[in-house]
């Protein structure tokens, strides 16, 4: 599980070279929208050579391939499938296109839910094999719906809520749509907090300067860590399934949640 999924263009050496500098838990190297058609080949060659030469510890690397109907779809997968990447991000996902990808790779898949039909098929998609999580693509989705994006995000509230329910029901990651205003730090924080409170486990992002905010929001806070430590300590002391702490009842699910919080905190070196 990752907190942040940073898109970087597959045809930009300076970004690739620094992909481990940005501190994003996961990197999505893009072969799709950020690479113009006449540079697709160059991007594939560059990424293939780069990832064959360098190893990246503690970072998950996904490739956003072109969609299943594109002439680049197969070439994209063939270029990198033999390399030790974490998986694929599939745009314009549908049950059919995911099956097409599954037919040629066994690596994990993150479908992008970015059209109305995909929203309706979310549950079916979530149950397909090798699905690591779902990623909401709000820009394309709102384009399809002929509506404008707003900072408040009310126009995508239904899609967000539905995605969170589906992902949690099928125990896969729920990855929120990127925040596209590069320099609006306060709004980015607000948007990420909203996503976290809705139940998203992570957020995609399109600018490296957003990583800090996303990682902070999707990490347990110091107060949450401290409380989790207290709960675990008390549970070890009392040796009971349920007990009272600060006047509130603590039972097994709360103890399990505290343990999960501490595990995440350890993973991200917050302890």
């Amino acid at each position, binding site marked *: 599980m990752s907190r942040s999924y940073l898109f970087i263009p597959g045809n930009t050496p300076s970004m690739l070279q*620094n992909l481990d500098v940005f501190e994003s838990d996961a990197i999505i190297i893009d072969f799709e929208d950020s690479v113009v058609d006449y540079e697709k080949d160059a991007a594939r060659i560059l990424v293939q050579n780069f990832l064959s030469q360098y190893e990246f510890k503690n970072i998950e690397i996904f490739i956003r391939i072109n969609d299943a109907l594109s002439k680049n779809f197969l070439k994209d997968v063939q270029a990198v499938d033999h390399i030790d990447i974490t998986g694929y991000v599939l745009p314009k996902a549908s049950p059919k296109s995911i099956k097409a990808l599954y037919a040629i790779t066994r690596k994990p898949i993150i479908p992008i839910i970015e059209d109305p039909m995909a929203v309706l098929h979310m549950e079916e998609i979530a149950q397909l094999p090798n699905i690591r999580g779902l990623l909401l693509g709000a820009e394309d989705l709102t384009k399809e719906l002929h509506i404008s994006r707003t900072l408040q995000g009310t126009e995508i509230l239904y899609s967000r809520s539905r995605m969170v329910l589906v992902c949690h029901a099928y125990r896969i990651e729920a990855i929120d749509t990127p925040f596209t205003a590069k320099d609006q730090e306060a709004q980015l924080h607000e948007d990420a907090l909203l996503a976290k409170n809705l139940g998203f486990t992570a957020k995609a992002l399109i600018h490296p300067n957003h990583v800090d905010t996303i990682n902070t929001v999707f990490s347990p806070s110091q107060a949450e860590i401290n409380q989790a430590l207290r709960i675990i300590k008390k549970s070890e002391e009392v040796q009971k399934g349920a007990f009272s702490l600060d006047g509130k009842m603590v039972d097994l699910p709360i103890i399990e949640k505290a343990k999960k919080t501490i595990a995440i905190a350890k993973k991200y070196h917050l302890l």
Partner: protein
Amino acid sequence: MSENIRPKALHNLEDLYKEFDIHAYKNISFHHHLRNGDFVLNMVLEQYLKNNVQHLNLFPTSIFPSYDGILSLLQQKQIDNITTNYLNGPVAEFITKNGLPGKLIMQTHGGRARAVIEGRNQIDIAYIAAPTVDQQGNAIGYKGPSMCGALGYCIADSQHAKITVLVTDNLIEQTIINPEIHGSDVDYIIVVDRIGDKQGIVSGTTQITTNPIGVKIAKNTSQLLFELGLIKDGFSFQSGAGGVSLRVTKDVKDIMLRDHIKASFFSGGITKYHVEMLEEGLVKTLYDVQCFDLKAVQSISRNANHIPISASRYANPVDSSRVIQDLDIVILGATEIDYQFNVNVTTDSHQTIIGGSGGHSDTASEAKVSVIVSPLIKGRIPIIKDRVTTITTLGKHIDCFVTERGIAINPKRQDLLKKLENSKLNIVPIETLAQLAYTYTGVPKDTKQISNIIGEIEDRTYEVIDYLYQK
């Protein structure tokens, strides 16, 4: 030549050379506060070109790309020697390629002020672009149609040149209180239509970087300063006007706001970001030797705690009141750094002159902690070398080197290393950072040519610490 009489006001340079023989004085100085917007240097040197004055020795505080007059004189072989603190653009390229009949001496801001005061740099005529001048010859830089802010770099020249000439486009009737240049030091005032182009004087290029690598370097730097316990009440700080340095300033500001910390002073070149912190009460005093933008210029005239200072007061190593002797932290850039922590900001890796010390060596020498900030790789070239192409600042004065991938601490600062023993920052030997860079770039071949010396790097101690070679 100066006596305590009112300076003579003239209306053109031709009249000035009726007062004395233009050929009689070969050592002439200029300041660079009007930067690429300066009309005065070219205006004056046109007279030297027209009058075919030979064997000139120039002492400009810096040389900018717009200083065409120097290039013309070089092409006509009328200049023997140049002593300056910084140069880039066509003049720098010409000298790199052709050298000089004499030599190029690169000094520091503090070292130059010292050399002028002590007579090592003997200035015959100081030509000073002065944005506002009164009838007594008192001058300031922070008012007038061509205002540029502090006039710090030419104060010593005004006091020690044989002849001091102010060139202004704003001669006023009322007496200037607290002038930067005192009328008693001034011999002539030349009134011209314009001394500069506002756009070039305050270029507005001082912006906080949003480049992700720069942002990461700044984040590492501010965290380093925090973990070293340097950001505390009463601390003093200097950062340049580069995008990364300004980002460090912003991040330091965030820490100050979070922890309710107030600084004592900021020094050096001042930007709107420093001014904002002064106005928000986060820092008590700005000691300003050079303004980098219009907000900084305007601040001097309205805020008594924004104090213009001379280069000597700023960084002259033998000036007992120098500001930087109390400096806690300085953030500096680098073109190259080597395993001994020597830093180059004078030449690029192909030996072309692209800059100079300015206050680099001065502040690194005196600040309690000097920090170099730079990407590990610039334009496909690793910044760390076995030995820098040109030493601008000696490694013994450099304490920390911060990159996007890790931080190297000069081994001589065991005290700093001890404080960072439990740090989560990636603290590694500089050799480790170099090897990391080489995995991406390979090890560049050394192409340095050392057959013809064309200049010297003179530290503020007057010691020659390196040479410049013809390319």
